[in-house]
């Protein structure tokens, strides 16, 4: 009886001992703590861009704290959405529950964003998208708390169609798209964009996610008479590179185009020589010598900043600027201030339309040259030294 009683007492004591060790240390900060949330895919298939974005956001917070000209100490609360809506909603709820979180910058995948905007709206926490191109995020509900600092898919495709049809003179397109949310929204956007610019769509083919063998479809396109001059692909970069490789295998000489989803060095690394001559709408061009890149490298992040890092960086800075103007307490006021802001940063000038969508977003045109994405203006294709496919 004695031993058993002793053991129980010991067990209880040990447990409570652990408890005490972990009890929150009350610390009084001189500066008011202001938390900014970050949600993005830190795990899963989009981890690379998610981590790049996180680092970009983190850099902005660090710089703000270092500068120290505001009476606030900023903290970045990083949560993972794993590209999954349910996880995203859980993360969003967690953020919104924390009264110290004044705003958040979120998401790469549109489906996750489409789920979480309702959460942020219900709790009134400003949410700025650094990724995710689906128009519905801003346009469908027009929640006052939601803004997007990257371009949406309609803007991208209009630019692409105009360039290909007017500048290059190619009017006939074949469209391939994948069955991701992104691929689908690309498909929905490219069709009107092409026809509005005066082009014709000769074929439309959807492929399931994870398809590796697109040869049957390409072979079919090859056999079309007359064939398309441009082959457009809307979807993830892996399939894009496979298409380009298989186009080369089949000896196809059409122009291969896409939008910002393909703006990743993964395309070139996978397709290697076959990538030559692919043309896309690219994300904001950040020069290697710019302060952002220098600071990013100096901060020593393990991961590359990808195309998303600068957007997240800009988003956080914009939010901090808004906090400077409106203060962090009144979230409604903060949301309004963000919407009305005109911000000058690494993406150029950012201002939002009536739906909270940025009007610029820093889009560029890029072509794959020697296994790298090069700005069209700087490329040998623009100068006429190389011939762009499709002729």
């Amino acid at each position, binding site marked *: 009886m004695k031993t058993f009683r002793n053991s129980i007492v010991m067990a209880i004591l040990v447990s409570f001992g652990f408890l005490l060790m972990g009890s929150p240390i009350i610390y009084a900060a001189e500066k008011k703590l202001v938390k900014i949330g970050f949600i993005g895919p830190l*795990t*899963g*298939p989009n*981890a*690379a861009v998610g981590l790049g974005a996180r680092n970009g956001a983190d850099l902005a917070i660090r710089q703000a704290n270092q500068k120290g000209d505001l009476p606030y100490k900023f903290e970045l609360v990083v949560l993972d959405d794993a590209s999954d809506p349910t996880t995203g909603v859980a993360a969003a709820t967690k953020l919104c529950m924390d009264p110290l979180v004044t705003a958040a910058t979120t998401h790469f995948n549109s489906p996750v964003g489409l789920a979480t905007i309702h959460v942020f709206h219900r709790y009134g926490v400003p949410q700025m998208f650094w990724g995710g191109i689906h128009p519905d995020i801003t346009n469908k509900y027009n929640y006052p708390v939601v803004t997007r600092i990257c371009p949406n898919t309609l803007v991208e495709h209009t630019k692409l169609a105009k360039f290909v049809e007017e500048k290059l003179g190619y009017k006939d397109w074949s469209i391939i798209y994948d*069955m991701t949310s992104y691929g689908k929204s690309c498909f929905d956007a490219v069709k009107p964009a092409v026809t509005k610019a005066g082009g014709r769509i000769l074929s439309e*083919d*959807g*492929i*399931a996610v*994870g*398809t*590796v*063998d697109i*040869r*049957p*479809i390409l*072979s*079919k396109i*090859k*056999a079309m*008479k007359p064939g398309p001059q441009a082959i457009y692909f809307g979807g993830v970069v*892996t399939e894009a*590179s*496979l298409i380009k*490789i298989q186009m080369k*295998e*089949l*000896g196809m000489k059409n122009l291969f185009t896409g939008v910002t989803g393909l703006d990743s060095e*993964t395309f070139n*690394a*996978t397709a290697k020589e076959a990538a030559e001559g692919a043309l896309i709408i690219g994300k904001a061009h950040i020069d290697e010598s710019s302060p952002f890149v220098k600071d990013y490298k100096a901060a020593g992040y393990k991961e590359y900043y990808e195309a998303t890092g600068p957007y997240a960086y800009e988003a956080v800075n914009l939010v901090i600027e808004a906090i400077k103007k409106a203060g962090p307490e009144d979230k409604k006021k903060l949301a309004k201030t963000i919407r009305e802001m005109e911000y000058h940063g690494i993406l150029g000038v950012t201002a939002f339309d009536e739906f909270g969508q940025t009007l610029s977003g820093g889009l560029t045109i890029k072509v794959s040259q020697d296994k790298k994405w090069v700005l069209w203006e700087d490329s040998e294709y623009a100068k006429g030294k190389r011939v762009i496919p499709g002729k």
Partner: protein
Amino acid sequence: MDPPLKGNRDMTQFIEQIMFALMLSSTYALIAVGITLFFGAINIVHFSHGDVAMLGAFLGIIFYGLFGFMGLWENIPLWLMTMVIFLLVFIVIGFLGTFFERTVIKPFRKSPLLMVLVATIALGIVIRESVRLFYPQGSNPQVFPKILPQVNFEVGHLILRFDHFIILIISFLLIFFMFLFINKTKTGLAIRAISQDIEAANLMGINSDIIIAITFLIGSMLAGLAGILIGSYQTIVRFDIGLMGGIKGFSAAVVGGLGNFYGAIVGSLILGFIESLTSAYIPGGAPYKDVFAFIIVIFFLVFKPSGILGRRAPIKI
């Protein structure tokens, strides 16, 4: 080059499609043959066979990188290194597969089928997730190196690839050698004996334990090579190609008749052709090609579970 007559162009296209279908079928066949072998020998359905093949592909990538790191690619001709990679993967995966059998399948030999089933599925999960987590950037698609010659050659208006031919030939040879092994060697005879009646085989002096291990060795070697061939053809490998691949391979084996060697081939051809041709010729059908393939499988399972060439397994009372 003037555009050829429309008739010719259609014909060319058609032949191209047939080629693609054949290639697809051969990738399934390599897996299906292994699964049918395991089932035939010890009545086990090895759900993670596809994942073993995936390991072969990844191992190929690792060796390629390793040799590059050691600076071997500059000094030694490509074809020799390629053969070395093939051989290494062959051996390593062979033994890895046998290891899996010893640890995960053997303990359940006397247990109800349910256990083995769940165990192999769990094994598949462990393999997939390990690759995803521990291989650098594992959740992203990986580029399989070009170890086969990337040459086009033209036959009339048809553009054919040299490396595709090599893949087809190697697949065919592998399956052929497997067939010879099972039917013409003494060990093959032992495997067939075990598949008919394991107790009797034991009584006849066959060490069934060793024979089973050998079966898995062979099957896994084949799977490892299958991985490399699939990697070479598809250029992209991902940690989860084993799941789909395993299911398709299993489906092919079932459609042809589980336990029947020729059945695995026939089933693979059927599945490969249906998939490839639906994505090419049925408008808007490409995303649903897997659905079509599965519906065929379910159809067979329901109406003709013994498959096309199958053998009937009586219920043991």
